[in-house]
């Protein structure tokens, strides 16, 4: 009997802690969003963050996209050969890349690179009292640290995803034309014919949402970190893990809503 009570007590504690965490994130998000629409905005910092998030993520996003696009083309070719549908490679590659793999892989790669960096930077600022110092210098930490990251991430991710989509499709094109014997002209023609505007729109919507999640999780965990170096490490890990999970969940929700019929 005692074991059963202990089990439910433990379960209840986890449940309450989970609810508290959700409430805390929601409160943080509401405060951050309220600061996003109120001046002052630090455009210089937004530009700097766009450079950090976008330009410096290009190599990792580009490599991920080209390898994934190439592998995808090879897999689809082999799979579709089972029912003599090799001609679908270009169409499937472009739809898979633009609708799913481009935004999700770019989101995950940027989350790994940027959420962790944001959490580590802000966490270090928290434990070394730099955030308190901002307050004593009449500067709101939300406006100075968090809002520029949110704007930069939301604006930059769609650009990165466009690049990832182009490079991913190019990866498939390379394998298809150089190894699998497809005609370059036909491959490109099929790619263009099968790509619809809803595919591109969904890709960009996902990118913007993922950008928001990446900056939000990096900022939330960094801003609220405590406990010295160990706390900063924990914040960094939590930022990446929570960003990954939220990106995959958001991707599912957007996909079901846009393509669920």
């Amino acid at each position: 009997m005692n074991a059963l009570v202990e089990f439910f007590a433990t379960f209840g504690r986890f449940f309450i802690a989970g609810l508290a965490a959700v409430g805390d994130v929601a409160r943080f998000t509401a405060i951050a969003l309220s600061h996003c629409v109120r001046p002052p905005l630090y455009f210089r910092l937004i530009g700097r963050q766009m450079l950090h998030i976008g330009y410096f993520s290009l190599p990792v996003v580009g490599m991920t996209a080209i390898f994934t696009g190439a592998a995808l083309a090879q897999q689809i070719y082999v799979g579709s050969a089972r029912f003599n549908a090799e001609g679908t490679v270009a169409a499937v590659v472009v739809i898979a890349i633009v609708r799913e793999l481009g935004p999700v892989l770019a989101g995950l790669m940027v989350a790994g690179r940027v959420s962790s960096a944001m959490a580590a930077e802000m966490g270090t600022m928290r434990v070394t009292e730099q955030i308190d110092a901002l307050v004593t210098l009449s500067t709101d930490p939300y406006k100075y640290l968090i809002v520029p990251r949110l704007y930069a991430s939301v604006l930059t991710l769609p650009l990165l995803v466009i690049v990832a989509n182009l490079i991913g499709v190019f990866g498939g094109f390379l394998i298809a034309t150089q190894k699998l014997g497809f005609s370059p002209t036909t491959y490109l023609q099929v790619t263009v014919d099968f790509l619809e505007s809803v595919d591109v729109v969904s890709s960009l919507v996902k990118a913007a949402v993922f950008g928001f999640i990446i900056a939000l999780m990096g900022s939330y965990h960094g801003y609220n970190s405590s406990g010295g170096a160990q706390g900063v490490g924990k914040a960094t890990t939590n930022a990446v893990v929570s960003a990954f999970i939220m990106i995959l969940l958001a991707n599912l929700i957007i996909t079901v809503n846009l393509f669920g019929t």
Partner: protein
Amino acid sequence: MSTTPKISLRGVKKRFGSKIVLDGIDLDVMPGESVVVIGGSGSGKSVLIKCILGLMTPEEGRITIDGADAIGMHGKAREKILSKFGMLFQGGALFDSLTVWQNVAFGLIEARGMDKDEARVIAIEKLARVGLGSDVAELRPDELSGGMQKRVGLARAIATEPEIIFFDEPTTGLDPIMADVINDLITECVRDLGATTITITHDMSSVRKIADRAAMLYKGKIIWQGPKDQIDNSGNAYVDQFIHGHAEGPIQMDILKS
């Protein structure tokens, strides 16, 4: 002299979970006065000034700055109150992404909207005021020694010429000579500005140099306060033990209890 305290605390209580850190603090600091709060590590000194700054919110009590309630203040009103403050943090808390002069000029540029070139000139002046040459202006904080970081922190604290300055353990981690240099700089800068100050420390040489009045915090309460020249004859066994640094006495450290 004005009879309205620059800073006034009444019945301020703050707890973390079951641990009571501040247990009904009453303290007045008059304009231009330098009050030093002493107490052992973990006695709540830093929490006290964080509550005054609004970095932490007390559960009970009232804090006023120039007669205006400071607890729960938001927006422009809070910005106005904060613009009166400068603070030297224990670890310096210099922004490591900025150069030394950008750190010193931060409040002038970001909070007051001053032109960068003009702010840089003032930053160099303030650096000179704390004994640092213009050659350090372009360095990063991690290129400075601990003493230099404290000086830059002091220059940043006085750059906006605030009415109230807080010093959090200003000499911790410094050698005795550098500690004395910092104490002298604090005394001179505060005198020049005519600022009201609260210093928290457990360094008695700082108390003797900086303070007009001292207060001792123990177990969340101010157990003694008075002019600094009375601290050696306070008649309070806790104060006597603390200022002489004796292990034996009414203050029992956790390690001794066990």
